[in-house]
């Protein structure tokens, strides 16, 4: 059993990723694709190694702006979600505005943010926040709104206040929704931060790629993409791990109790 688990969870994704890189390398070599269009995987890794210092420095900036925006989004999203889930009128009132706001492409907001906060990390943090809080709000509100009415009856008949029901049932019940939404939100926050950097910033992976592109340093552009994908996986895995830890009861099918 253990060995099978290992094969499924470690060997199979590693093999798949490796073969993807091999195919990429082979295609570039066989068709002799110019370096400025699609550099081979080996060229990209070479660039990654050669420019490791600036890449690491800029990755760090992107990482912390992402996490800062994500952190704000988590607090804000949780608060708003509970408020919206608490009261039907609030839900009805806020929801259309939220949907409307969420429909605005955040790229279009970045210039405004730069206008307000100047070039720097702040616009990236704000973009990360603005793009990622919506799924948290919706999920928390949904978790609260779908509390079984009979369970609510059991508690209300005992004289439980709305706050009691929220504390004992609503909030624990919506935690799996909340943690589930964090997985979506973290990747969105990452996208937001990078988008903001590519529109205007002093630092960050997005900025690095933009500079490399204008200098026709295509391998660096692709190295940046690789780093982005890698960081995305790491961030996602982190939130998935947190989710597993806190809401193991919701994954009873897979867990070994």
């Amino acid at each position, binding site marked *: 059993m253990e060995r099978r688990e290992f094969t499924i969870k470690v060997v199979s994704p590693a093999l798949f990723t490796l073969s993807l890189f091999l195919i990429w390398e082979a295609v570039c070599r066989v068709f002799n694709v110019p370096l400025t269009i699609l550099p081979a995987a080996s060229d990209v890794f070479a660039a990654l190694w050669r420019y490791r210092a600036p890449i690491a420095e800029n990755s760090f900036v992107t990482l912390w702006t992402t996490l800062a925006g994500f952190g704000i989004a988590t607090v804000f999203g949780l608060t708003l979600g509970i408020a919206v889930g608490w009261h039907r009128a609030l839900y009805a009132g806020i929801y259309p505005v939220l949907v409307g706001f969420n429909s605005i492409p955040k790229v279009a907001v970045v210039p405004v943010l730069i206008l307000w906060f100047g070039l720097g990390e702040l616009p990236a943090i704000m973009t990360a926040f603005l793009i990622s809080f919506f799924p948290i709000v919706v999920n928390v509100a949904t978790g609260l709104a779908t509390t079984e009415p009979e369970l609510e009856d*059991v508690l209300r*008949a*005992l004289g439980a206040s709305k706050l009691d029901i929220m504390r*004992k049932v609503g909030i624990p019940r919506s935690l799996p929704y909340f943690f589930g939404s964090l997985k979506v939100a973290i990747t969105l926050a990452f996208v937001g931060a990078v988008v903001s950097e590519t529109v205007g910033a002093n630092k960050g992976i997005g900025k690095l790629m933009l500079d490399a592109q204008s200098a026709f340093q295509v391998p660096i552009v692709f190295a940046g993409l690789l780093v982005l994908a890698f960081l995305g996986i790491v961030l996602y895995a982190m939130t998935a791990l947190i989710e597993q830890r806190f*809401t193991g009861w*919701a994954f009873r099918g897979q867990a070994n109790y």
Partner: protein
Amino acid sequence: MTSPVLVRLDRVSMAYGRREAAIHAVQDVSLEIRKGEFIAVVGPSGCGKSSLLRLISGLHPPLSGNLSVEGKPVKGPIKSVGMVFQNSNLLPWRKVVDNVLLPLEIVEPHRSRIRREGRSYREKSIKLLESVGLGGFTDKFPWQLSGGMQQRASICRALIHEPEILLLDEPFGALDAFTREDLWCLLRDLQAARAVTVMLVTHDLREAVFLADTVYVMSNRPGRMVKCLDVGISRPRDLEVTYGAQFQAIVHELRGLIGRTGDPAEGAH
């Protein structure tokens, strides 16, 4: 059988929604439940049986008529009530023992004591679970229990705060026939031991006749009381009773009453 009246409904009507759009669920229902009595309410589905429970528990106000529990008119949740539904509604993130403790975290005076005296409350919860045969399952999570065991735990949750009245809304509806009979006996014994007043809403006529002192039959929506039937078989009853002629006759009579009240046009939805 001259114990005082605990619940009194006097020509009570109830509706959901307002004014013109209101749907009348219960119409002019009068009934009395004596302390320690076990009554069952049967009727076709959608006849307002569950609404009756919501009325008595104080979750929904009556439209007209008088409703009192322990002589006092019901104005809001009455607190001295335990409820069990068809779904056990146990909280999946709490162990069984903690699920049973839930009402004590809500109802005074336990609410302010449970922090300090957590252990003794926990022991009480475990004892109660042991008495329904869940001794070895107190530290399990609800999903690790079978449907019948979950329902046993749910009954414990309804009893832990020692309520005056137990309101059961088709509590065994989702169980298989054998488990159901086990739980009938469990409920019979619990009621006998604790002398708690029970109101059971069900559409299982055998269940109603086996358990209750008095069976009320309701008509189609809006629900009215068609019949109040004294079962008259001495209690406690053994499952064997359900195969006897007297028992069968009562069930048969009840079935006839429900068949007659069913209006095909009404029953369509």
